[in-house]
């Protein structure tokens, strides 16, 4: 028995050693916590799924890119911090908040339920259905559509009800892309679909269509941060206003979505 114990102690020590090495490595890799090293910019870690084009995704060279990613980078810069996007699976996003990253910039809609768990910044973009028409159709607002207009919508979507309030001439399609194609080729007068989906597809499919009027039902998308950190919240909101004011925001919109999605 005595010898068995010795053996245990040895193994335990080995295990401890391994843990030490592991945590030691962690210290090397972690951002310097030393307050003396003040000239190193603070790191702003923010998470997104990395699987949600065009907001966050990996390009051909496996670089993490997208609207959310660049907004985060722009905010970090405005706050004088170093940006570090942390791609994390969607379902796991809330778990790492406050420990693995300071914020979620992951196209998260502000809902009552989520507001109980985190604080949200001002919306950094808005989404929701908009009316899309051909660029040269002369239609400039929702009011220009009549009961005679043909509207194409995604089958069994919430947009169907919105379209039905305007006209009975509905055409149903299996995907937004198909509906938008029909609009582009003139076989429908309008399409109602999510503004970003519409803008992105118009760009990708090279369709000559535009969105008119306001968002019909507004979804506000915010930056989630841990509860009870008003300082950080204010800082982020200030940075958001800054990048909107100096044109950075619009440039990112143009790059990834093809139109202003701030909804301001």
């Amino acid at each position, binding site marked *: 028995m005595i010898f068995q114990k010795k053996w245990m102690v040895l193994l335990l020590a080995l295990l401890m050693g391994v843990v030490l090495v592991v945590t030691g490595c962690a210290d090397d890799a972690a951002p310097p916590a030393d307050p003396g090293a003040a000239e190193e910019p603070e790191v702003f870690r923010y998470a997104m799924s990395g699987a949600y084009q065009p907001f966050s995704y990996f390009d051909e060279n496996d670089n993490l890119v997208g609207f959310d990613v660049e907004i985060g980078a722009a905010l970090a810069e405005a706050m004088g911090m170093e940006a570090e996007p942390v791609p994390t699976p969607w379902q*796991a996003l809330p778990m790492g908040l406050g*420990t693995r990253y300071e914020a979620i910039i992951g196209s998260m809609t502000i809902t009552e339920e989520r507001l109980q768990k985190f604080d949200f910044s001002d919306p950094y973009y808005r989404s929701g259905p908009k009316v899309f028409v051909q660029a040269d159709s002369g239609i400039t607002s929702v009011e220009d559509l009549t009961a005679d207009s043909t509207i194409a919508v995604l089958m069994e979507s919430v947009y169907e009800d919105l379209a039905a309030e305007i006209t009975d001439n509905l055409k149903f399609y299996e995907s937004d892309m198909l509906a938008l194609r029909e609009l582009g080729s003139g076989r429908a007068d309008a399409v109602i679909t999510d503004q970003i989906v519409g803008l992105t597809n118009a760009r990708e499919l090279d369709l000559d269509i535009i969105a008119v009027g306001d968002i019909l039902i507004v979804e506000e998308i915010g930056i989630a941060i841990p509860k009870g950190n008003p300082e950080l919240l204010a800082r982020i909101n200030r940075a958001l206003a800054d990048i909107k004011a100096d044109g950075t925001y619009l440039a990112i919109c143009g790059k990834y979505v093809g139109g202003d999605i701030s909804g301001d």
Partner: protein
Amino acid sequence: MGIVEYFIYFYGLLVNSGPIFTQATILTLRLTATALLLGIVIGLFFAMLKISKNRVFNCIADAYITIIRGTPLIVQIFWIYFGLAPILDIPAFWAASLALAVHNGAYIAEIFRGGIQSINRGQMEAALSLGMTYLLAMRRIILPQAFKRCIPPLGNQFIIGLKDSSLAAFVTMPELFMIAMRRANRWPGDALEYYTIAGLYYLALVVVFTFLVKKLESRLDVDK
């Protein structure tokens, strides 16, 4: 698209994604190797606790093995990466490796225990009767023999560990499966192809590894 065209298309994807998947393969191997080396240490430790005559040690080992074998690996990975983050803020690589190590450790502990107990009691007695300590007898006499018997099940466990390392994707590790997921997200039309490619990489690794284990086994058999 005919079969030939499809094959050429697939081949094109395979070649184009080669560099990225190669990088991912290296990460997969690093994860697996780290996890299994740690897993062997953990496994050996708990095997010792398990075969010891001390009740408390037995209970500790039983609890560990039961808990780890009774819960899904993904839960353990999340538990270490997210759950322990406030107290053990280790990078994703180490969190994933540690989780995989702790997980595999439970199975390796059982493999070692089985291997050690399959060695005739007379071996330990002969060693002790020569004046060796328990520790020395374990190291020089029992473990070398046990280890040899453990090679086939260990090889098996290593293959499982290699494939399980794909779950590290869920804590941000850009290993093979993660790269396939990213590509499938970026080009949904090619999702099937990219998952197939990832599968091929795993398959190749497993085939090579199986071959190496067989070789090792037969080499160690020579002096038996």
